[in-house]
């Protein structure tokens, strides 16, 4: 969707767009529309992930950094959650079902003074999230979608899931969480996108 320099009042006869009910509701945040497919967004090539060398880490402001191999990670207690997701490009998808490990499980026994985190991925992607927003049953590190192994184009083998924030915060191909005392803007947050990203307050861009 683009919005620069419209010719005054011009309307393309008969054009409606490939839509979608824009009416927000208790389930659909303002400005969003509901899709039934699962759009793929990608800021770069899909990384080829070698599970033999894959690890998930919690590092940064932590006395003893934690690290799990793929085998260790898959042995952690998993849960299945059903959540609505909201992409900043304006689609929402309702009742998506994911299986993975709660961040609370990963953070068990971690003592930290950090208030902020950077979630980081293969391929260099990062996103910043306050620690309070990924603990307390609010975020998961997931490896199944809809009962199937997570497809690489949707972030497989493992992606982040923090459904109460815009979906760019749910980093694909996630590899760890860095605990930080200060907030460091991530890949999109450093270039126009909102530091927090609450879909219910339409926090899409800087200043929203």
């Amino acid at each position, binding site marked *: *969707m*683009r*919005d620069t*320099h*419209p*010719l005054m009042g*011009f*309307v*393309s*006869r*008969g*054009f*409606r*767009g*490939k*839509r979608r009910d824009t009416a927000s509701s208790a389930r659909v945040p303002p400005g969003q529309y509901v899709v039934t497919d699962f759009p*793929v967004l990608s800021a770069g090539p899909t990384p080829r992930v070698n599970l033999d060398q894959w690890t998930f880490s919690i590092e940064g402001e932590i006395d003893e950094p934690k690290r799990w191999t793929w085998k260790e990670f898959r042995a952690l207690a998993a849960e299945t959650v059903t959540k609505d997701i909201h992409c900043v490009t304006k689609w929402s998808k309702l009742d998506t079902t994911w299986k993975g490990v709660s961040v609370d499980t990963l953070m068990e026994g971690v003592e930290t003074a950090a208030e902020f985190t950077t979630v980081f991925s293969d391929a260099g992607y990062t996103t910043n999230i306050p620690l309070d927003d990924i603990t307390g049953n609010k975020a998961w590190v997931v490896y199944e979608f809809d009962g199937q192994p997570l497809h690489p184009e949707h972030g497989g083998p493992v992606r982040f899931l923090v459904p109460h924030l815009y979906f760019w915060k749910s980093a694909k191909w996630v590899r760890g969480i860095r605990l930080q005392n200060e907030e460091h803007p991530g890949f999109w947050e450093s270039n126009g996108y909102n530091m927090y990203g609450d879909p219910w307050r339409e926090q899409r861009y800087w200043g929203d």
Partner: protein
Amino acid sequence: MISRGPRLITWQLGVLAEIVQETPRVSSLYFDAPDWPGHLAGQHVDVRLTADDGYQAERSYSIASAPEDRRLALTVERLDDGEVSPYLVGELRVGDKLELRGPIGGYFVWRGEEERPLLLIGGGSGVVPLMSMLRHRSHVARKAPARLLFSSRTLADVIYHAELEHLSSADGGLRVFHTLTREKPAGWTGYTRRIDEAMVKEVVWPTQDMVDVFVCGPTSFVEAAASLLVAMGYDPRAVKTERFGATGG
């Protein structure tokens, strides 16, 4: 032609003057655009659609017409799950107005000022900017030798088939090679497979010396074709490529 010096790019209105159905899924749209500044072969235009509630969608389309042609032509493939192409091919009628801006691009451009051989490789509607080059070539006096390798799914999907036959039969300097990837029609004398090393070796000039090369099509097609040329010794930087996605629509 492009004026010199910085200049804001602005939207203008074109009026659809004629629709020519090229294949079951592809149509050419001919516009009268009074403010059109002219273009070079290979350039494209941005098209913007606006719904009555202000919703907008914008896409980029290659120009099919030659710079010398009276009307600005776009050739558009209808993608069923697309948003803009089903409007352009299906909803838009003669007399309707369309917001355009351009011309855009200076990399994937052939000026036709040199007599260097011209090698064109197109997949599907990737032939559109290449057709603008061939149409331009038909207008210039000193014609570079030219070859087009054009991959289509089926015979019915071959865009500009008759015009390509006409252009090449009237001009010994132009050779057109077709390949069909999903059909082997009776009596067909062209290739019937995806482009491969043997095909490229039969079609292209053996050395890259002073050849202008343009490859356009879906991303996977372009990368396959460019790799084959590079394997033959073409300099990757001399192979000009333009990719379009299957998801844009």
